[in-house]
C-alpha cells in the first residue's frame, strides 16, 4: 500500500508538474504539490524527496524539448547573460528550481495532512 501510494504520488506529481509547467506560472507548482502531499499522506521527507525527483526530470525534459524543438540560440545568449552558463547548466538550474518548489510544496501539504492524522 505504502509502495503503491508512493508510485501514485510520483505519477501524480509528474502529471501535475507537467500540466502546471505548460499552462500556469511557476509558483502554481507549490500549491499543486501541497495538495498532492496532503492527499497522499506520505511522510514529509518521503513526499519532499519524491516531489523533487519527479519534478526535476519533468522540468528538465520540458526545457530540453523547448530548446531542441526550436534550435534557437536564445538559451546560449541567456547563458552568456548568467556568467557564461552552458545550456546543460541552464537545464539543471531550471529543473532544480522546479524540483525544490515542488518539494517544499509537497512537504507543506504532507505536514498539514499529518496535523489531523491520529497516531496508531
Amino acid at each position, binding site marked *: 500500500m505504502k509502495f503503491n501510494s508512493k508510485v501514485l504520488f510520483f505519477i501524480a506529481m509528474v502529471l501535475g508538474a507537467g500540466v502546471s509547467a505548460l499552462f500556469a506560472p*511557476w*509558483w502554481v507548482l507549490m500549491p499543486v504539490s501541497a495538495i498532492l502531499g496532503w492527499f497522499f499522506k506520505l511522510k514529509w521527507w518521503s513526499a519532499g524527496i519524491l516531489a523533487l525527483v519527479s519534478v526535476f526530470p519533468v522540468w528538465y525534459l520540458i526545457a530540453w524539448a*523547448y530548446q531542441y524543438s*526550436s534550435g*534557437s540560440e536564445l538559451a546560449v*545568449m541567456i547563458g552568456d547573460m548568467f556568467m557564461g552558463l552552458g545550456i546543460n547548466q541552464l537545464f539543471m538550474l531550471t529543473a532544480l528550481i522546479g524540483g525544490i*518548489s515542488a518539494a517544499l510544496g509537497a*512537504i507543506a501539504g504532507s505536514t498539514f495532512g499529518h496535523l489531523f492524522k491520529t*497516531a496508531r
Partner: protein
Amino acid sequence: MFMKKYFGFCFSVFLCFFWGFIMNHSWKVEGKYLPAIGPFFGLYEGFWKNVYMAGKMPTVSAESFSTHGKLYLDVREVPHIVADDLKRAYFIQGYVHAMHRLWQMDFSTRAAEGRVSEIVGPLALDFDKNKRRKGLAESARLSIETWKKFPETFSLVEAYSDGVNQYIRELDPSEYPVEYKIMGFSPELWSPFRSALFHKSMSEVLCGRDKDIELTNARLFFGKDFDLLFPEENDLMDPVIPAQTEWAFSSDSIRDLSPGNFGWKDTGIGYIPWQREQGESGLGSNNWAVAASKSASGNPILCNDPHLTLTLPSIWYEQQIMTPDLNVYGVTFPGIPGVIIGFNESVAWGVTNGGWDVMDWYKIQWRDSSQTEYLLDGKWEKTEFRIETLQVRGCEPVFDTIRVTHWGPVVYDDPMHYKYGLAMHWVIRYGSQFCELDMFREMNSAKNFQDYRNAIRKFPYPAQNIAFISREGDIALTVQGAMPIKSKGQGRFVLDGAESKNAWNGFLPYEWNPFTHNPERGFVSSANQKSTDSSFPVYYNDGDFREYRGAILNRFLQSRNDWTIQDLRDLQFNSYSLKAETALPLMLACTDTLSDKKNRPFLNSLREWNFHYDSAAIQPVVFDLWFDYLHKLVWDEITLDTTRKAISVPSDQTTIHLMKNSANLTYYDLVSTSQKENLADLISIAYDSMEIFLGNDELKNLNWGRYKSASIPHLAKIPGFGLSNLSSSGTKDVLNAHARTFGPSWRMAVELTEDGPVAYGIYPGGQDGRPGAKNYKSMITSWREGKYYELLYLKNGNDPRIQQLKSF
C-alpha cells in the same frame, strides 16, 4: 506531539513563502536588477517560452487585420502589405512592426521620454534627466499639436497606433519579448505621441550635436591661431551642391536678417569644463545618384547607405506597402508609419545627414543664487521652473527642476560660480507649419521631380541631404531642413544670452534651401560634407561636416560614364582612404631621411599599401596607429593635458594640411621636453611608439579587422544579445565608414528600369527583433562581406511571385 507537528507544518509553510519570495524578487547586484529567478526560469512564463517561440515565426493572428488587407512574408520575413487604402495599410504596418520589434519600439521611445529609470533604477537617472532637459517629450507634444491640424495624416498615424495596439492586446504576458522578462516591465500601449517621440529621438541623434563649447574653449586656448587651426573652409572641400550652382535668392534678400560678421566675442565665462559624449567624428552616411547618361544601362541609379550606431535589433525594418494608389518598398523605422528610404515604380530616394549646427548655447547670467531671474537686454527676466518627476525603480521618485529661459532650458551650470549657466537653443523647440510625416507619405507615392520637391518641403529637421532619381530621368539632391538665418560666425561659439540680438533671425524659406537638379556632371552626391561653397548667401556653420568621403566619392563618380549597379554597390563597400593617400607620403618622406628608419619591415609594407582599409591587411593598423600617435604629439598642448578635456583638437585634415604647408609650426615643439622638436622628430617619435606597440608578440598576427574589432551591441546592452569581435573592412573617413560600433546601417542600390525597379539592399541585423530568432541577425555575415539581397518588389497584389510567400 501535536505541537511538534504544528511546528513542522508552520516551518514548511514558512519555507514555501520564503522560497516564493526569494524566487519572485528581482535582486539588485552591483546596481543592476536581475530578473526574478522564479518567473524567469518558469517554463510557462519565463525565457524557455521565448526559446520555444524563437524557433518559429512570430505569432500572427490574421483575423485581427483581415478586414484591413493581406500580409505576405518572404523568406527574410520582409512584410509585403496589400490593402485597399493607406489607412488600412498603416494598421497592418503597425501590427507587423510590433510583431517583430515591439520591445525595441517601446524601449527606445521610453528612453527618448526620459523614463529608463523606471525600468533599470537609479543607474539611468542622469540619462533621463538629460533627455528631459533637452525637451524631447515637450517637442513631441508640440508635433502632435501640429499633426492634429492635418486630420487626414493624423488619422493615418492613429491607424498605425491601432495596429501596434492590436498586436499588444493579443499578446499573453508569457509571450512578451524576452527583454521584458529580463528587465521586468510590460509593454505600454502605443499612441501618435510615441511616434512623435521616436522622430525626436532620431532628431537628437542626427542634429543634436554641436561643437560650440569645445570650440569656445579652443578659441580661448589658441587665441589668434584659432582661424588657422579650425578653418571653416579647406582645400579638400567638394560641397554637396556643386560649386557655381545658382541660388534661388541673393544675399540682398536677407541683408536685414543676416547683417555683417558676428565673429568671436568672449562672453567672459572662461574655460567650460563640460565633457560631453557625442560619439565619434568622421563617420557618416553616403548617397549618390547617377543620371542615365552616366550609367552603362542608360537608367538612373541611386545608392544610399546611412551610417548610424549599430545595434541589435537593427534600427531599420524592410517593408513593402501596396495600395491602389502607391506601391513602395524600402526601410522603415519601427515606430513611424510609412517608408523612410526607398523606391516605387517611378522614383527612388535616399538620405544622409545635413549636419548643420542647429543647436546653439547661450550664457545665462543669473541675478543671484536662487536663479529665479536672469539678465536679458538690461532687465532681469523671470526664470520659468518646470518640475519633472522621475519614477525610479526601487526608490522614491526624484524631482528635477528644469530652469527654462528665453533661449531654452539651462542644461549646464558653471561648477565654479552660481552666476553662470548655459541654455540650450535647439531647432526642435520650434513648431512646424507642416506635418513632417507627410513628407514620407508623399514621397512614398511620388511620381516625378515635382512630387519630390513638394513632399520634401514638409520636413523641418533633422536636416537631410535627400537624393532623388525618377524614371523620367531626373536626378536631384536637396539639402532639406529648417535652416536658421544667422550672421557670419554666429553660433559657432557660446553666445551671450544677455542680449536678444544674438538670437537667430528666423528660418530660410524651404524653397531657398540649397538644391541641385540634373547637374551637368551627371551625378549628385553627399557624404556629410559642407552643403555649399562660400557663395551661398546664408551663413551656416559646422555641426558635423566631414570632407574626405565627399571628395573621394566625387572623384570616383567623375571617373567613369558607364556605371553599373554592381559597380556602385562595390563603391559602397569601398575602403580607399584619401586621408592615408595625403598623409602617408609626407610621413614616409620624413622617415626616408632618417638612417635608423630605413628598411624597417612596417615601412616597407606601408610603401606597398594601396590605401584600402581591408580587414585582412596589416598596413591600416600600422598607419592608423602611427598617425594617431603623431596627431597626439602635434597637439600635445591639449591631448596630453588632462585638465583640458572639453576642447576641440584640430582635425586630421587640418593637421595634414599644416604638415604639408607649415614646416615651422610652433605646435610641433613638445611641451614636455627642453629641446626644440620639429615635424620630422614627431614623425619619428610617433613611428617608434607605434613600433613598440606592434612589436609585442601577441600583436604580430594582427590585421585591420581584428584590430578594429567591431561590435553590434544589443540596444539595451544586454550581454550575450549582441555581437562582438567582428572582423570587417572600413574605417571612418572612407566610403565604407565602419568604426567599432558605428557603420552602414542600411545599404541600398536602386536602378529604375523600364520593367520596374531593380533593387538591392542589406542591413546588419535581421527583420525579427526577437533575440535568438532565425532572422535576428541573419544578414550580418553577408553585410560584413559586402553582399546584398535582391529586394523582392512585387508589382501589385496579383504578382505571381506572391504565391511563393507565406500569406496571412
